[in-house]
């Protein structure tokens, strides 16, 4: 009798342990996808060593990827969208505050050389966003998207981005507006200054059925008529010009919640037929390799949604000439591009793992 009681008492901790074990075991069955938290690039090693040097952004922090290792650069803050000067001696990046953003000139190690814009104000309406900086090929001008002018009290406060240009070594008051966006759409983004003096940029439009379109436009001069290079149904954005200026990489969504990575020949004013390289995923922020023979882009792995860096060697097949495409119409609803040509799928290589790179900050690669 006593033995049984002792046994029963001794068994109580076993029951308690087993019950706790079941509780803890159920906890381990939680979705790994939801629980996965990204790490900083500096605690990872790239799975593939890229040639040259690349700058990427994660969670407002800038990182330099060189010779297979990451180094964090720049002061603390919310940094994004770095870009290089053509001589590869300086960086320009966006520093974002709570209700504004400014452009800064940095050295290649991220030390601030100069604050280029000053967009913060105590009056809420006088704050501005300066985004998507790019330097012209001759290094003279800085083009960027800027939310000015604002439409005041029409129906609602209109805040749309226009493309502006200012001397790189000048002051903000010298800035000049280049584009006239469709109002109440968010406006024009991702400008690329061209060697010929014009710009490429992405313009947004919204039709009455609430469908939003994005198109890549070419514009020769400030406030001149802009010509669409892609159709409204393709929904192309995030243009990236190859180092020799003859090809354009872009992201097209065709009204879906998935995207395709495409490239098309470009002769300075006309875009040729596009080739789809990747599709059906969330591909974004393409950038050309320094030799123009490969692309890098961001895409998530699995369902975590954490964007990783991918490397994509380009197929060696001859690229159709841009002049073979029909002339682009000035109508925003025309379709100047012929249907994308299917191409044998090149094999992308995953470069990073476990990080969560900022998909709205395209990498810089030189």
């Amino acid at each position, binding site marked *: 009798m006593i033995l049984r009681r002792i046994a029963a008492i001794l068994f109580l901790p076993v029951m308690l342990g*087993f019950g706790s074990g*079941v509780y803890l075991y159920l906890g381990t069955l939680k979705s790994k*996808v939801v629980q996965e938290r990204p790490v900083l690039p500096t605690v990872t090693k790239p799975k593939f060593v890229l040639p040259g040097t690349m700058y990427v952004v994660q969670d407002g922090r800038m990182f330099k990827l060189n010779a297979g290792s990451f180094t964090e650069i720049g002061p603390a803050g919310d940094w994004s969208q770095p870009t290089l000067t053509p001589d590869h001696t300086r960086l320009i990046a966006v520093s974002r505050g709570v209700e504004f953003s400014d452009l800064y000139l940095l050295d290649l190690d991220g030390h601030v050389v100069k604050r280029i814009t000053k967009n913060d104000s105590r009056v809420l309406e006088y704050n501005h966003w300066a985004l998507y900086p790019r330097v012209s090929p001759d290094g003279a001008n800085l083009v960027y998207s800027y939310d000015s002018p604002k439409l005041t009290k029409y*129906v609602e406060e209109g805040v749309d981005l226009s493309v502006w240009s200012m001397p790189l070594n000048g002051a903000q008051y010298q800035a000049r507006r280049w584009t006239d966006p469709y109002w109440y759409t968010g406006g024009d*983004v991702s400008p690329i200054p061209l060697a010929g003096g014009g710009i490429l940029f992405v313009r947004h439009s919204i039709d009455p059925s609430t469908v939003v379109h994005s198109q890549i436009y070419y514009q020769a001069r400030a406030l001149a008529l802009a010509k669409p290079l892609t159709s409204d149904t393709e929904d192309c954005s995030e243009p990236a010009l190859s180092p020799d200026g003859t090809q354009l990489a872009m992201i097209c969504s065709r009204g879906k919640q998935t995207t395709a990575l495409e490239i098309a020949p470009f002769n300075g004013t006309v875009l040729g037929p596009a080739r789809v390289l990747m599709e059906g995923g969330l591909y974004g922020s393409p950038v050309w390799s320094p030799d123009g023979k490969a692309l890098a882009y961001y895409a998530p792995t699995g369902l975590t949604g954490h964007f990783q860096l991918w490397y994509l060697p380009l197929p060696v097949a001859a690229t159709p000439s841009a002049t073979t495409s029909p002339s682009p119409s000035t109508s925003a609803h025309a379709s100047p591009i012929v249907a994308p040509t299917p191409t044998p799928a090149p094999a992308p290589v995953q470069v990073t793992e476990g990080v969560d790179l900022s998909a709205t900050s395209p990498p810089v690669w030189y």
Partner: protein
Amino acid sequence: MAGQVPTRRRRASRLHPARIAALTLFCLILSGTAGAAAYFFPVVVAGVGQTGQTVVVPPSRSPGVAATPTPSAAPGSPFTVLLLGSDDDGKNKSPLTQSMILVRVEPATKHVTMLSIPRDLWVPLSVGGYAKIDAAYAYGGAAAAIATVERNFHVHIDEYAWVGLKGLIKLVDRLGGVDLVVTNPVLDDQYPDDINSGFLYGYRRVAVLPGPQHLDGSRALQYVRSRHNDINGDFGRSARQQEVLLAIKAKASTLNAADLPDIVDTLKGNFTTSMGLDRVRSLLSVATAFDIANVKQIVLYVPTYTSYGNGPAYGGASVVVPHWAQILAVTRENFP
């Protein structure tokens, strides 16, 4: 003495190894069940407090308009859910619904149809009088919102679910963020600064940049709530709300039963529904299985389905006037 022997035998037989094994197994099952019960206790509490909410929808007083209460859909058959979203920041004692989305789920075919109802739609309310449809919830809670939608749109609603703004933020964060192709820059100089803010009527500037990206809860809320810089105003916002809903669905498909206590804890106080746990479970299984290509999204945009109106006829308010012939054709087709 003679009687002691059988007693010993009986005791000895109770200590038989098979009995000990059975007893041990029973105790382990008992303790394991207790462990599992402790793990799912928050779900049970939520099941009592937040799911299975009973709503009494008053019968229609308008001739020619379908009156509700038909029995709820049988398990496995198509059902319609009214999703309600509103600020729960204390600005209004009875919150307005900033978002009303009718969702029809067809478990057999894995088809889903979503119809966003403009918050400013000028309709007769089930509680009496005309007003913007977002006031129905404020005047009469979920029952009035359901009755108003049923009578005006001639649909039968089986269930409803209400989520507050903070609930949406927490849910998206708990899911580890959502993945979206943001279609255009969403900039707003008059975005309400009422989440975790001491002053509920302040504004702030927000900017959600375009492109494929991973959004956390705060950014996702900015994307679905901003409307001042959208040429289609509330209609544009409705389309974005549907995008985020689908992104949440995609992420939720990675969940399993072990995640339920965390989700319940996340939504505590920010979520109520008439759905029982069995219906929630079947909804989750549909979410896991259905293809985004099988989702039909409808927004009642101007000028096809609605038009803008203001002036004394609408109590001096700016409203959205329904074109019922066009709207009812859509609801007849998609919400039979």
